[in-house]
């Protein structure tokens, strides 16, 4: 049955991908990428990757759609119509695809437990992590403990990307330097959306609460710093969509926001240094407490918190810098 569901969803996915290619209306295309991500997240759930599905749904359907739309509002919404399909490109794509398909015939079949992927380090993690780390969610223990260096690197990449976006978009032409006249439609329209405002008043706290739950429940179920950060950012983005950017900026001033971006990364690296000073290796959490698993728990909690803070503030400040820019 799961097989059939998987195949149906993959067929939907292919359908959406073709539609995205054929459309020239970029607005409709961005809306469809949201659907594409939701479908992909469903497939990840079918394939047992609940943590990944969590992230894909929050990032792909939420943040990515919002960023694409913000870009479109600053640029153009219609692609220049192409002269029929581009045959050269189509040929290249077909040839590459054909070669890749030929390559798949040597690959292990879907779900094969004897596949090379499941022979080396994977079973080791599955067998050892429950006793060594003491966290039921193996994805969290691999992410935060076994591959802690890796995750530190990824967090640093996110931090760097945020810096790049801020450098590119954060100067001149800021909206708050414009006259008050331009602000007017923003305010007016949101006064129309009375129902939305009332509803968001008690919906946004629920989102933030749920974000905290995901953050701290990540050891036991799907969730963790990456997912929680994105959900938190989504809550703040909803607030600024409903109440306007300026109000959101009053609540979280840019200085605090940018400070927190760095703070999260420093908290992660600091946890590593702390374990270094307590007679362990860098990021060896078992040095943090008398008992090994206890130390692992503390370490995972701290670095997940650091990841969560960085991801949430990076996503928020990216959104702010996109939507704070005036259309030229």
């Amino acid at each position: 049955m799961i097989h059939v569901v998987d195949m149906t969803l993959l067929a939907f996915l292919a359908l959406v991908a073709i539609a995205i290619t054929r459309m020239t209306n970029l607005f409709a295309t961005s809306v469809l990428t949201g659907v594409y991500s939701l479908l992909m997240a469903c497939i990840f759930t079918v394939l047992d990757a609940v943590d990944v599905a969590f992230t894909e749904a929050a990032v792909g359907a939420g943040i990515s759609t919002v960023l694409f739309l913000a870009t479109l509002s600053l640029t153009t919404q219609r692609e220049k119509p192409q002269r029929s399909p581009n045959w050269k490109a189509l040929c290249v794509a077909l040839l590459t695809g054909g070669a890749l398909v030929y390559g798949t015939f040597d690959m292990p079949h879907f779900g094969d437990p004897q596949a090379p992927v499941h022979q080396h380090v994977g079973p080791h993690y599955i067998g050892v992590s429950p006793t060594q780390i003491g966290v039921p969610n193996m994805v969290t223990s691999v992410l935060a403990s076994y591959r802690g260096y890796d995750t530190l690197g990824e967090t640093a990449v996110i931090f760097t990307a945020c810096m790049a976006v801020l450098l590119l978009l954060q100067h001149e032409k800021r909206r708050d330097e414009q006259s008050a006249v331009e602000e007017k439609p923003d305010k007016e329209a949101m006064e129309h959306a009375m129902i939305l405002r009332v509803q968001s008043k008690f919906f946004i706290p629920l989102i933030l609460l749920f974000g905290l739950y995901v953050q701290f429940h990540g050891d036991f179920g799907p969730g963790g710093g990456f997912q929680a950060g994105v959900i938190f950012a989504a809550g703040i983005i909803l607030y600024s969509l409903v109440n306007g950017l300026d109000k959101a900026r009053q609540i979280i001033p840019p200085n605090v926001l940018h400070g927190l971006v760095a703070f999260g990364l420093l908290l992660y690296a600091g946890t590593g240094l702390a374990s270094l000073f307590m007679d362990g290796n860098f990021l060896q959490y078992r040095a943090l407490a008398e008992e090994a698993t206890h130390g692992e728990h503390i370490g995972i909690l701290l670095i997940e918190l650091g990841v969560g803070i960085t991801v949430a503030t990076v996503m928020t400040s990216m959104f702010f810098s996109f939507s704070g820019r005036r259309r030229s």
Partner: protein
Amino acid sequence: MDLIVYYASWALLSCGAFLCAVGGLGILRLPDFYSRQHAAGITDTLGSAFVLIGLMLQSGFSLNAAKLVMILIFLILTSPVATHAIAQAARQSGLEPKVVAEEDEA
């Protein structure tokens, strides 16, 4: 008692699935945007509620049932607001409902 719950959840689930399918048919076949909204309404409220309540009966008195209740509350909180916002945006952008066909018949 168990049997009653079992059949009740069976009935609710199939009702929900049926309503969803009807709504899907509606969104595909109805003539214009405003009438399609009715079809979407069926699936978002009654269809989802039936399916979720059916699942609740299956999971008994447990954490899963509590989570399903939360999902239902969230759906009830968001889905009508979203539909309302879409309709309002459509109206403000000047999209007119299709009424011509009816006048022709009269």
